[in-house]
């Protein structure tokens, strides 16, 4: 799996755009070899550069996203958004960064200062680790692990730990409440997230993320991409996965752990300056990671959406899909109000988990009944009938009621 011989092979010209993201890695490895340093050093240097490439790309994307998010939210509310720093506010992230760096770093007197310091660091680390296993392009998987999916979830679970650490170490009420909420929410939503991903593992027969993407290549009927989303079980699992993603990434409408109107800023209440910025960064990097995983599992990773578009470098497709998914996140944030904590938990346990459990037999049927027409014929009713039942029950019991207050009316 080592990428070194591949990279240094003369068959790949350096100007090939497909290899562009790995150019720094290649250059460093070439320098190390040129200097006659041992092979293991070349590998380590190459890995370090690969890691820095990922961190650099996503730190830049974080800066850009923080601006685009504000701009998009502003446009939805018919405002202009930040437009003072630089043309069209392009330098706003720089100004924000300078502000965050120069702010006083306050640690509460009674806080557990070491844990208080460790929490913001530990929230960024798992996000970066998780970003490392995602296949960004045909030839660009920073760490091509055999059990990439397992690694992703194992590392992703660390985020909860650091959030709770932040809440506990602050020795304050609001952070503690926020941390408790975060734990209950993330543990509840991890379940549908993993169950939804499990269907993909069942059908692909592997946990290696590059392999899962490779299996989604090709087209049905010549134009429908063979992504997991375009199967009956994949559609349901994809939607469940997406909803669980929103909760895992602490995004609106499931951003209860930091509900500003109720508990100030949740676990971030007692943080200021650069530690606060690190929390933000960890949250956004986590958002990138989990969106990347969703794209890998359901949206065909770096596969082109239409036949005949193979000439575009594959990593471009990945980032195009990532932008689209992130835009949907922004759109949802701009639209929906925050849900209540009991609604949140009920939705996870009474709706998402049963539905995601249903996708497992559906995926098994799909796998064994042949993945064509017979698969559709068998799995569609399996998913459609419970959906109809759910619909009826939801309309009966959970539809919003119209309340009339007769004293107000008369």
């Amino acid at each position, binding site marked *: 799996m080592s990428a070194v011989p591949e990279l240094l092979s003369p068959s790949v010209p350096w100007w090939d755009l497909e290899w562009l993201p790995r150019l720094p890695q290649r250059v460093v490895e070439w320098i190390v070899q040129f200097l006659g340093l041992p092979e293991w050093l070349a590998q380590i240097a190459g890995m370090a550069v690969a890691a820095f490439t990922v961190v650099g790309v996503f730190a830049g994307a974080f800066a850009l996203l923080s601006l685009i998010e504000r701009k*998009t939210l502003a*446009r*939805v*509310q*018919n*405002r*202009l958004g930040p437009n003072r720093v630089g043309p069209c506010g392009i330098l706003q992230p720089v100004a924000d960064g300078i502000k965050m760096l120069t702010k006083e770093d306050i640690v509460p007197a009674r806080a557990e200062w070491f844990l208080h310091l460790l929490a913001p660091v530990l929230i960024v680390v798992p996000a970066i680790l998780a970003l490392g296993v995602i296949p960004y392009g045909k030839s660009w998987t920073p760490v091509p692990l055999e059990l990439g999916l397992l690694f992703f979830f194992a590392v992703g679970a660390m985020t909860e730990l650091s959030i709770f650490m932040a809440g506990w170490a602050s020795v304050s009420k609001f952070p503690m409440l926020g941390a408790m909420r975060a734990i209950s929410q993330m543990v509840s939503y991890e379940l549908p997230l993993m169950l939804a991903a499990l269907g993909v593992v069942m059908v692909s027969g592997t946990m290696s993320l590059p392999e899962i993407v490779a299996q989604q290549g090709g087209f049905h009927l010549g134009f429908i991409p063979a992504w997991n989303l375009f199967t009956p079980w994949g559609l349901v699992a994809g939607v469940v996965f997406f909803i669980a993603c929103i909760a895992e990434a602490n995004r609106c409408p499931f951003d209860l752990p930091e509900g500003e109107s109720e508990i100030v800023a949740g676990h971030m209440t007692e943080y200021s300056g650069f530690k606060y910025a690190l929390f933000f960064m960890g949250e956004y990097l986590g958002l990138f990671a989990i969106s990347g995983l969703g794209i890998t599992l359901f949206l065909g990773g770096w596969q082109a959406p239409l036949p005949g578009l193979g000439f575009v470098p594959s990593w471009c497709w990945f980032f195009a899909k990532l932008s689209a998914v992130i835009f949907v996140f922004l*759109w*949802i944030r*701009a*639209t*929906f109000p925050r849900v209540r904590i009991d609604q949140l938990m009920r939705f996870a346990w009474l709706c998402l988990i049963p539905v995601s459990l249903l996708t497992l037999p559906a995926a098994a049927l799909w796998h064994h009944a042949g993945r064509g027409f017979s698969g559709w014929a068998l799995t569609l009713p399996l998913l459609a009938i419970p959906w109809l039942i*759910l*619909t009826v029950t*939801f*309309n009966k019991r959970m*539809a919003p*009621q*119209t*309340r*009339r*207050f*007769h004293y107000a*009316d*008369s």
Partner: protein
Amino acid sequence: MNDIQPHPAVKDPKPPRKWTPPGLGLLQGLAVSGRNLVESFYKKDRMVTVQYPEERLEISPNFRNFPFLCYDGDDPVKGLRCTACSICEKECPPQCIYIVLDRDENGKSLKRPKVFDIDISVCMNCGICSEVCPFDSIYMDGEYEMSGYDRFGGMMLGLDRLSKSADYHMKLRPEQASEVLARRKADEEKKAAAAAAKAAKAKAEQEKKAMEAKQAAEAAAAESSQGGEA
């Protein structure tokens, strides 16, 4: 589930509940915000933000805050309508106006202010000064960018900053200013007419007197000539 009984006057307590697929409301909401997002790029009337320091909203003619002094013509000293009568100074509730009458070397009033200060850190924008002014001199301004670096000196407006031309007043509040101008013009004409009438009357009297004198002289002459004949 709904414990509240509808009032008998309420015609339709329960809206007809149609079957809707779950999630339809969410999609409708997304459509609304998506339309907002897209239309904000090409529909001008959606974006109501005014980029303040570069462009500003036109203020209403009814917008009034701090007082200013109005002058006619181009010279802010000669054309000043204020006669330093001190009515506004006495009426001002927070006592933020300070006036010193200008006098010549003999101590005779020149009917103009030597000092006219308004402390706008004290002024409460009531507009009483402008209402009591009998000389159409003091009006409320529409100026709202009056922040300064100095709490005392910067907020104390003297004659130089208070004096503003009648044209400015016309631009600020055309209706009021044109009414005032028309009234002032009519007053002036009336005054001029009165002066002319007075002058004419004086002239007529003079002529009459001259006439009478002449007649008297003529009569005297005739008398003397008659006497001579007799």
